[in-house]
């Protein structure tokens, strides 16, 4: 089957931090996760935007919790996309969220139409995998080609981020063996990545300046300057840090295309914490 942007849809969940999905591409949709403060539950981005969320995080006595979309949420979205022959449903890894399980349960009612894809990554990087799929849909592609793309993306995409404190990752249990990597004292900044669906600590440095120098070093060591290099940047209520990263990317790799600069939404923000900043890169082959 020749897959095109006319016959194929892309569904993301809100951990891709790309709420404008449906506005940008008519064949795209975003299914929100839920964030909860006490008894009040909100749909990520739709009922609680990032700005209000970080405000709330500063003032609320309760700490937020998150939950995956229900299978019914996915069923509703897949039904809405009835006019399409194929749906790529691209999600945050199973090890970090049950989201893809809900998607799979819902997908069963749609025969072979829906393909649930574990992106192996989080936030803007999920959206970037979507962009790479969309570029291929726009020129015509096949399931096999998309499978190969996903595989290559999982193997080659780069992701680095740092948090102000590991407290949020720990509280949400999203940190695995990074737990012992703590060190809140002494301005220690962990340099983290996501590998095999797990948050992995790569290194610890002291101070924001060194964390930034580390980002720069690793980015320039693992990329070359070409238009095929795609970059995404995400931050949690730290726009100045995101801007600093954007400048760094532009300086190191002037030809690279920064595809997305976004704020972490309430769900990802709940687990990363304010002050988080990170970036993602993928060298596409076309």
């Amino acid at each position, binding site marked *: 089957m020749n897959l095109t942007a006319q016959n194929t849809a892309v569904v993301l969940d809100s951990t891709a931090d790309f709420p404008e999905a449906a506005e940008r591409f008519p064949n795209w949709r975003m299914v929100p996760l839920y964030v909860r403060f006490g008894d009040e539950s909100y749909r990520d981005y739709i009922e609680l935007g990032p700005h209000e969320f970080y405000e709330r995080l500063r003032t609320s006595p309760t700490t937020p919790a998150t939950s995956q979309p229900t299978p019914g949420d996915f069923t509703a979205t897949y039904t809405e996309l009835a006019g399409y022959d194929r749906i790529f449903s691209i999600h945050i890894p199973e090890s970090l969220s049950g989201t893809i399980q809900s998607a799979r349960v819902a997908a069963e009612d749609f025969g072979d139409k829906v393909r649930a894809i574990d992106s192996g990554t989080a936030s803007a990087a999920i959206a970037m995998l979507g962009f790479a799929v969309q570029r291929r849909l726009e020129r015509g592609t096949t399931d096999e080609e998309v499978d190969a793309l996903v595989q290559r993306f999982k193997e080659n995409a780069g992701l680095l981020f740092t948090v102000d404190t590991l407290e949020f990752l720990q509280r949400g249990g999203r940190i*695995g*063996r990074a737990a*012992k990597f*703590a*060190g*809140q*004292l*002494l*301005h*220690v900044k962990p340099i983290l990545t996501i590998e095999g669906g*797990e948050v992995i*600590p790569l*290194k*610890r*440095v*002291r*101070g*924001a*300046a*060194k964390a930034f120098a580390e980002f720069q070093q690793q980015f320039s060591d693992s990329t070359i300057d070409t238009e095929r290099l795609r970059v995404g940047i995400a931050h949690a209520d730290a726009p100045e840090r995101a801007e600093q990263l954007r400048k760094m990317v532009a300086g190191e790799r002037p030809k690279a295309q920064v595809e997305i600069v976004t704020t972490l939404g309430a769900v990802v923000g709940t687990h990363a914490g304010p002050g988080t900043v990170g970036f993602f890169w993928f060298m596409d082959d076309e």
Partner: protein
Amino acid sequence: MTPLELARGALASLEASRQRIDDLNVYPVPDGDTGTNLTLTARAIADALETTESTDRPALAKEATRAALMGARGNSGVILSQIVRGFADVVGDAEPFDAGALSRAFRGASDAAYRAVRRPVEGTMLTVIRELAEAAERTDHSQSAAELLVELVRAGEESLARTQDMLDVLRDAGVVDAGGAGLVEIVRGLAATATGEPIPEAPPRESLGFDAIHQELSEYRYCTTFVIEGDGLVREELEGELEQLGDSLLVVGDFTAMKVHVHTDEPGSALAIGTKRGTIAGVEIANMHAQTQHRSARLLEVVPDVKTEVVAVVVGDGNRRLFETLGATSFVEGGQTMNPSTADLVAAVERTGAAEVVLLPNNSNVIMSAEQAARLAGKPVQVVASDSIPAGLAAIVSFDPQRSADENATEMREVLEAVATGEVTVASRDAQLNGLAVPKGAFLGLADGEAVAVGESFDEVARQVVERLLVEPRGMLTLLRGEEAPELDALVASLAKQHPDLEVDVQDGGQPHYPLLLSAE
């Protein structure tokens, strides 16, 4: 096949299983060090046989016995030392050394082990040594000693498997006895050496149940071991007194030397009982609660291997805490006026459970003894030559327990090269330093070991040191306040004005003699 080769074979086998045995350890207290203790005890024997001048079997047997007694660590090590004694007593005189003699040696070992323990408990390494002796007695004594050893490996494995049903604590934890497991590894090593081929491990062991780490802690905190050397020592007397102080008591040896092992909250009182009767040596006091926490952390990791630990020489409670939060696990108290000995450092290295160690001397006067300790220690040790506490702190930030000591050290040394350090102290006498007249009692500021400021005002001297450290562009300034806790608000405020991009971190180090330690990186 010499006694040395046998000892080495046993040691190698234990070493290979050391971590696994540590993790099995739930009885008598889950302090997670049985594998380590047995390995170190076996190593003491191998080392003694390595260096001995004796050549005849009886003399070698005596040396092995003595080495085991002196080197015994922990409960399990002490029982092993008795097993070695009972074994060596028979082997020393047996001629020819055949299956029959070996069988008698195991019986001797078993009897000696039971004698050493006040209230023998079944389901422990005692059970395993006894059943090994019984199995040896049942077998055909016309086979060679090597063939018998191979048979005993299997018998030991079966006996070990049964320990789980004998002790509730083992059954609840879903594990076999750690000391018994060590004993089987020793026999496996002996058999492999005797036959010249590896004896494969029997059935895949069950993985350790997570319940094991929730076993209750010993009600006592310190595992205390030492040797009393004297004249006319009486075991029952010592036991009577030591029993008042705690539990897990073991006293073994002869009237000239007794090894004591006790779990107690009052290690000092235990030592005093020793010094009353003779001289004490080989003192080791380990905080079992810390060991247990350490082990829990290790078991809970997704990736179970802690490859490398950091041993840090520190002074000041705050400084110690800082090193601890950054992953140092073993500490030696010491600094400018109190340099630890090489032996202290070796002991700290040996206390770590990891295969490799990075040692941070944190003082220029400690670097040489640290290097000496690295050569003497029984495991690979990399000295990262930090010459001050703030330098060591900067270095340990890059530490990752899952990498080798070598990899860690390379990175830590790189960090050190990019750190400038300074200190503010009080001159203890009139002096002339670097062209500066320094009156007694004045504040003296040093940057990278050079006197750069002197004066009556702490703030002014500190400020000059900071400016000197910031001559090259730096992003991060660390200030460690000494035990007198000088007021730093004014200094920090003026720094924020003059260096708006500089991150400043103030911590209570608590070190004596130096109101302020600084680093810039």
